[in-house]
């Protein structure tokens, strides 16, 4: 097997807030091979954005390693880091904040081209910008050259954001809630455009979203990683995860997706959680952090031992004591009480 393009090994990130340590991301490991897609899914505050920022090198992990093509990005020399820097691009969630309001669209897109000498001259730059805009399906490109970001709609801005990330021909794109802030009617076309990019350009995608339905659409051929309070609770191939979720949290998330068919929604089995409240990151429950809400909770097991992510079936990694037991695997003993 070739070296994965992105690999996280035991990555944690803590923040200090009023003298208290907040564990935003706790011991997360996963790897992505070139051309693959992985979706990080979870509710707000589960650490998916922090993970995305660490993958793209904007944040330094408190512990653990983020590797690009097998090398720890924080131990790279200048030349290697430069290569990594351009190879991994991030698309921000908010298309209103991610474009500089003082620049025209042409300037926004041509700056990286000119800075990195990816074009020979002004004419070439114009040609390349036009091409990029066509890639992200903005037409006619020339009409947008002299426009300012505030003159564009949210969907158009997000497309420009994507085009800007593409200027440096990245191999990995981290899309942080890239479609969450745009209108639902535009979301699907934006998703379709990103899917097309993934197929045509062979870009590896790390797609961060809170919406399992979006993840399912986007990463059907890839994997979904479900995060809960900074930990990864399930990492499985998308069809398995959707059709046969192992972790009770994944199950709860899936049951919460509204269906377009009211008959389906009415008859659909809703998982009853023991508590609707998400515990505070400042005061995490001991053992499995989900045990306060988990319908499968077992006293003396779940609130004592932290379950580690374990492969239960090929391509299905789950961190749950009860689910593991069903597969005849015990997660207790390998980990200490934290």
């Amino acid at each position, binding site marked *: 097997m070739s070296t994965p393009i992105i690999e996280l090994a035991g990555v944690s990130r803590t923040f200090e807030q009023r003298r208290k340590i907040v564990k935003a991301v706790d011991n997360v490991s996963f790897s992505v091979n070139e051309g693959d897609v992985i979706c990080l899914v979870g509710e707000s505050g589960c650490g998916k954005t922090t993970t995305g920022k660490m993958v793209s090198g*904007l944040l330094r992990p408190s512990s653990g390693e983020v590797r690009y093509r097998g090398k720890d990005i924080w131990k790279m020399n200048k030349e290697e880091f430069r290569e990594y820097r351009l190879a991994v691009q*991030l698309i921000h969630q*908010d298309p209103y904040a*991610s474009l*500089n309001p*003082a*620049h025209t669209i042409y300037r926004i897109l041509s*700056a990286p081209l000119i800075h*990195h000498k990816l074009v020979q001259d002004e004419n070439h730059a114009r040609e390349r910008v036009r091409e990029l805009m066509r890639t992200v399906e903005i037409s006619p490109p020339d009409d947008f050259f002299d426009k300012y970001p*505030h003159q564009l709609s949210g969907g158009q801005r997000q497309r420009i954001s994507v085009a800007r990330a593409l200027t440096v021909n990245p191999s990995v794109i981290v899309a942080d809630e890239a479609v969450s802030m745009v209108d639902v009617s535009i979301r699907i076309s934006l998703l379709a455009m990103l899917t097309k990019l993934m197929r045509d350009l062979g870009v590896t995608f790390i797609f961060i979203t809170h919406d399992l339905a979006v993840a399912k659409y986007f990463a059907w051929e890839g994997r979904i990683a479900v995060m809960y309070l900074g930990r990864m609770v399930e990492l499985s191939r998308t069809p398995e995860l959707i059709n046969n979720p192992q972790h009770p949290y994944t199950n709860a998330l899936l049951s919460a997706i509204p269906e377009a068919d009211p008959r389906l929604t009415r008859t659909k089995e809703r998982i009853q959680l023991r508590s609707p409240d998400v515990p505070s990151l400042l005061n995490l429950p001991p053992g499995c952090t989900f045990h306060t809400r988990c319908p499968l909770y077992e006293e003396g097991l779940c609130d004592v031992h932290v379950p580690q992510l374990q492969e239960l079936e090929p391509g299905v990694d789950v961190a749950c004591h009860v689910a593991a037991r069903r597969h005849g695997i015990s997660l207790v003993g390998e980990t200490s009480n934290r």
Partner: protein
Amino acid sequence: MKTLRLLMHNKVGFAGFLGVLFFLFLAFVAPLFIPLDTETRVDQIYQLPSAEHILGTDFQGRDIFSLIVHGGRDVMVVAFLTGLISTTIAVILGSLSALLGGWVDSLIMAVTDVWLAIPQLPLLAVVATMIKLDSVVLTAVVLAALAWPSLTRAIRSQVLSLRQREYVQAAQLLDLGNRHIISSELLPNMMSYIAINLVFAMTGAVYSQVLLVFLGLVTLSNNWGVIINLAWTRGAIFSSMAFMNILAPVLALALFQLSLVSFTRSLEEIFNPRLRTSV
């Protein structure tokens, strides 16, 4: 052409712009045609405005209009230089402080805090006794040395907030370099702020220098401040006929300041593309 249209767009701003132009013309071009009246005419002291002397005459019978015309140049040059020097210092120190952080930030902020705590006017008076402030440039330098701290703090907080913007992060991700980030991502978004603060620094400099001249701490030859100072020392306040002698320079100062401040409205529109679109 586009800039001119933007200038005209805001009526208050355009009026201010015209006012500034008028005063520039008055101070730099008019002196070429209107000679400075130095003659003493004892029989024409404290005259009211008339066709011959449109702003009246002063305590020694000189034409006040000619004094006003010749007294503006130094005021404006000092104001402009002071504004330019203090704003430049503030932008450089403020950005460095915000971008580098750490001990550089602590050091710069400590210095500005101390500087801000010093009462400026007494310090100016002390400085003026040590250095003979008889040149325009020297006066500007001294005034600028006192004016930079508050703006430095403001610029620092601007940069700190802009630095966290996602488009700055995007520029970092695209490895566009610090020079690009400062000159293309940060500065354009601060330009209106800087330009407006430059103008405010100028208005501040006008007042402090006129005050210095009025107090006699700065000995510039001909200046709106000098007119007030002389009128004061020669007892103009005791003569009800002498009001033009005080009013003329005060009005000139006030109108010049008003023009500058109104002009900032246009500057705002020129530098902010979001306000610009309605044109």
